[in-house]
């Protein structure tokens, strides 16, 4: 399963890198332009996946969506790691009242449905790549917090930490030097699984009319546009962006599962 996942993800990375190049060279048409093309044309040799309501090529738009999705998701998950891990480390190490309050806040954040939380943030921040990434990252911070904090709690009672403290190491030094590396093992699994989830949430935001600006082709908003055409039997605008999204989520989930087996097994 790991191999399938990696190959699939590799394919997505290739698409993300090659599509802008091919468009610049002129081999592919730009998915934003399409006024010369017929509207809602079914798949044909000219337009392999047909055209949408503005005559834009569905195939190219779907390909273009890959790069954006990967960018936003990567940004979001990285932000979440950079905030969640230190906060979790600090809270777990500090313990006491601070820890309890932090845990309560994070648990509450964690119970709020993922999509709703990012809807609020995306609604306030408006559209944009960075804004969408922020809206997504807030959802995942509690997960890193939780994992890192629990592990810090376990590790900090180990003998070597005590020894380091006895030798006069300050809290910052202990956290950076001894705790950080020990609590990091579970982060990669979470990161991959969260990335999978983030693709879905980004799509959900786009579907609700939030997230990325209209000038950037995005799978979720394309699917929302396709919705109006479904009752008249126009299936091609709905099919391809969804397949792309499904594949990306699938590849990341397969990879995450494989990583999980690896971490648990060793």
């Amino acid at each position, binding site marked *: 399963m790991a191999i399938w996942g990696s190959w699939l993800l590799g394919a997505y990375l290739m698409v993300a890198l090659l599509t802008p190049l091919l468009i610049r060279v002129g081999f592919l048409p730009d998915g934003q332009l399409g006024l010369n093309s017929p509207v809602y044309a079914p798949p044909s040799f000219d337009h392999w996946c047909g055209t949408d309501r503005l005559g834009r090529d569905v195939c190219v738009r779907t390909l273009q969506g890959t790069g954006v999705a990967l960018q936003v998701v990567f940004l979001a998950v990285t932000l979440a790691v950079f905030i969640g891990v230190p906060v979790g480390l600090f809270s777990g190490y500090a313990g006491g009242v601070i820890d309890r309050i932090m845990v*309560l*806040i994070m*648990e*509450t*954040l*964690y*119970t*709020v*449905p*993922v*999509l*709703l*939380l990012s*809807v*609020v*943030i995306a*609604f*306030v*921040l*408006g559209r944009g790549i960075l804004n969408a990434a922020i809206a997504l990252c807030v959802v995942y911070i509690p997960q890193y917090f939780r994992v890192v904090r629990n592990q810090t709690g376990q590790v900090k009672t180990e003998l070597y930490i005590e020894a380091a403290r006895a030798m006069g190491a300050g809290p910052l030094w202990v956290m950076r030097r001894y705790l950080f590396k020990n609590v990091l093992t579970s982060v990669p699994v979470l990161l991959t699984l969260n990335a*999978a989830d983030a693709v*879905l*949430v980004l*799509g*959900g935001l786009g*579907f*609700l*009319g*939030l997230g990325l600006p209209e000038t950037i082709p995005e799978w*979720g908003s394309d*699917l*929302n546009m*396709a*919705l109006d055409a*479904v*009752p*008249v*039997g126009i*299936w091609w605008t*709905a*099919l391809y*962006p*969804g397949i792309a*999204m*499904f594949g990306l*989520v*699938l590849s990341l*989930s*397969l990879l995450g*599962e494989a990583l999980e087996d690896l971490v648990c097994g060793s």
Partner: protein
Amino acid sequence: MNRSRSLLKYSISRLLLAPVMLWLISTLVFLLLRVAPGDPVDAILGIRADYAAREALRVKLGLDASLLTQYFKYLNCLIHGDLGESLNNQEPVRQLISNTLPASIELGVIAIIIAITIGLAVGFTGIARPEGKTDLIGRLFGIGTYALPPFWAAMLIQIFFAVILGWLPVGGRFPPNLIEPEGSGFLIFDSIKTGNLQALLGSIRHIILPASTLGILLSGIFSRSLRLNLDKILTTNYIQAAKSRGIKDRQVILKHAFPNALLPVLTIAGLTIASLIGGALLIEITFSWPGIALGLQDAISQRDYPVVQGIVVIISSLVVTISLLVDIAIAFIDPRISFN
């Protein structure tokens, strides 16, 4: 004796936590919407609106007062069940939510029943012959249902069953040529109560596609967690003991392993469904099901700020309450949980 006392203590401490969490959520939503960079007035009117219009809206929303005053006013209104009114048509947000919530709950409940049935069935057929073909398919089913964007899966089902085959209605909740039965807002229940057979059939025909889509998508959680837990339990000593006494595999799984595997499944399912329901409800939009998610989408597209705020606070509070109740219920059922 000792256990029942600690159980009671646990339940009370969890229940006392509920208001704190609800307060945290409402504060969080408030802070996000007011303090985050980005002005709600800009969000509603756009940045190019003229000064007078912006100030007028600011006063109307009470945004001209100090942040602390706004916060206390907001909390005070929340406690009294006042969620403000829609900017769009002056309808109280509370009214709007109570109009749409029954539709969402009706869909959710039926979907979860479908999810449990399918999920447990798939989980079982897998475990009967571990590592076999059905098992692999079952595991792929688990990952697949997770990886499918719910609103897209709904579109595919809609295209196939409603548009191409034409078996069921494309969307909506009730046949447009009939009059909805009065009552609780749960149409199936109301139709049965008023004995209106036509209305009952109509609403059932409309709910089949959305409920089964949601049900199938959620069933993956059940099949996966059942599969994982059965796996773990089947290697334990008491199962080995049961097998060595010559009890048939089927008997062992059904009588000895299943009851013990069920509780963790319920825990996981309870928590995951609560957090998933937000994403899964997007299928309401696909099927134009007049529930709360459709209301949310309308509010977002009209930049109707109080409605977005109200819907988010209400759904989040519901989810928090449900997951607390699931916690407590499981503590009562499972004698192995200890509270320290």
